[in-house]
């Protein structure tokens, strides 16, 4: 394997080799999918059991105003009872969706190998879709209820959000509207100086807010936890010694880590010693935090693998989806 970092490859010979390599990878993936389809999957039980060669399929049945997903086994059962039934059907949008999701998943993983057109495609899609998504959410969840709903409650309730719980106009909503308009003045060169006022307002208010919040719930409350006695009697001598040692180690740790954060004194002499112990505590904290996080990250990878193996390839079926 070459040690080339991802993205390097402007040399045409390298680029040609990379293209060939990608063709091979794609051919292998394609062949595996064909084999998967030929092998097929048995869905349904008893008399309804049948082998299907498709996978990554989603079946739906009507439910309320829309459709609900049902396991492939339910479809097999329904077809076994009545081959002409139209209640449980294959959902093309959802099936295409599962395949799109699976291919996009592979495209993102391909970045681990190196930057490549598939990753770039996935990247372009996610940037566009997510920006559009967050803006839609902001429009419907914030602008409509909190701005339009506050300033024009009658119109909003009649046409957009009948369930909105407002009756009278709330003129306070003009404040963010004016601030927002000032911010948008940045779009034009001549008026862009007005854009600093909303910035000043936001940063100012939140600095006041966070000032009190952090001093209250982090500084004061954490100092207050240190009222815990150092002497911790337990049921047994071992418990007493253990509890007391723990309490003393906590105190030593808090004081020495704080000592590390002193800026106006060089880390020499007793302060230097304390700061060094402080660093050790910090490193233990980071090590533990790292260890805990690894767990979560592996779980996420497992979830993606399960998606590929379960919902797309139908290799496993732990939750009885097909």
């Amino acid at each position, binding site marked *: 394997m070459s040690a080339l970092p991802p993205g390097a490859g402007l040399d045409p010979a390298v680029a040609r080799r990379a293209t060939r390599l990608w063709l091979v990878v794609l051919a292998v993936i394609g062949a595996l999918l064909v084999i998967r389809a030929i092998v097929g999957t048995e869905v349904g039980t008893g008399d309804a059991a049948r082998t299907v060669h498709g996978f990554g399929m989603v079946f739906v049945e009507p439910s309320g105003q829309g459709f609900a997903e049902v396991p492939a086994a339910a479809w097999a059962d329904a077809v076994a009872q009545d081959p002409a039934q139209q209640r449980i059907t294959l959902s093309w949008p959802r099936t295409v969706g599962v395949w799109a999701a699976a291919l996009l998943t592979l495209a993102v993983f391909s970045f681990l190998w190196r930057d490549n057109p598939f990753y770039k495609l996935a990247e*372009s899609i*996610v940037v566009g879709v997510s920006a559009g998504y967050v803006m839609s959410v902001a429009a419907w969840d914030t602008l409509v209820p909190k701005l339009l709903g506050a300033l024009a409650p009658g119109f909003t309730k009649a046409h957009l959000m009948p369930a909105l719980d407002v009756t009278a106009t709330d003129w306070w909503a003009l404040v963010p509207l004016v601030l927002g308009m000032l911010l948008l003045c940045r779009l034009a060169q001549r008026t862009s100086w007005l854009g*600093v006022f909303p910035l000043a307002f936001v940063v100012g208010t939140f600095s006041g807010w966070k000032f009190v919040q952090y001093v209250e719930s982090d500084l004061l409350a954490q100092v207050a936890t240190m009222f815990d006695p150092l002497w911790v009697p337990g049921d047994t001598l071992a418990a007493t010694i253990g509890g007391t040692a723990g309490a003393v180690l906590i105190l030593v740790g808090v004081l020495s880590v704080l000592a590390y954060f002193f800026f106006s004194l060089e880390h020499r002499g007793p302060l230097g010693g304390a700061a060094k112990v402080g660093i050790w505590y910090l490193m233990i904290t980071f090590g533990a935090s790292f260890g805990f996080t690894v767990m979560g990250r592996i779980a996420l990878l497992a979830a993606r693998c399960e998606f590929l193996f379960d919902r797309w390839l139908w290799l496993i079926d732990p939750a009885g989806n097909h």
Partner: protein
Amino acid sequence: MSRSMAVLLASLAGITMVLSKFIAPLGDAEVKVADWFNVLAAIAFVLGGANLLKMNLLAISARGPGWGYSAVTLCAFLVTLGAGILKVGVPPAAAFPAVPFSGEKDVNGSALWWLYEYAMSPITGTLFAMLAFYVASAAFRAFRAKNAAAMFLLATAFVVLLGRTYAGVLATSWIPHDNPWVSWLRLENLSAVIMSVFTNAGTRAMIIGIAIGVAATSLKIMLGLDRSYLGGAR
């Protein structure tokens, strides 16, 4: 001139917020301000969206390398925005059949739901999952016992990793669990001790330091000493 006014505005706004925590009639200022900020951030999307359009349109018109990806981004953005704002494929809410826009914007089956479920969610989820690979690579490279501090980092990560699996439980299962003098050495207990003593102390002290750092930063903003977020470099 406008900058000085802006700094004054920041100070007044900050001081008002501080006072609101102590003066009862100002008590609901926080909720209001949080609402205002959300609305402002929503309006600011016009700035971000305009920038996104501009950057991608420039890239497309320049036909530089990779302009096709810009076109994809642009299409994905406009399609999603259109689907979301116009609630494409969203039936009216059951309670209000006469109001066409009354349904939830991302109800199961709608266009926005499809884009979220099958495009955005798998990509972002996979990017998140790639961390599993990166933690492995970082662990191999960075966790080396170069000095005492690194040794502590390494040893703790090791114990926690081992203690959180069945393997760790097996590895120290020979230590009697009913002898209080040694039972804490069992890996699953040892990682709990690390968490409740060392991590507890380290986190507490960091939280205290951070609170003081936030206080200093906020005060500097309210006093007008830090103004570079407004372009007021000195």
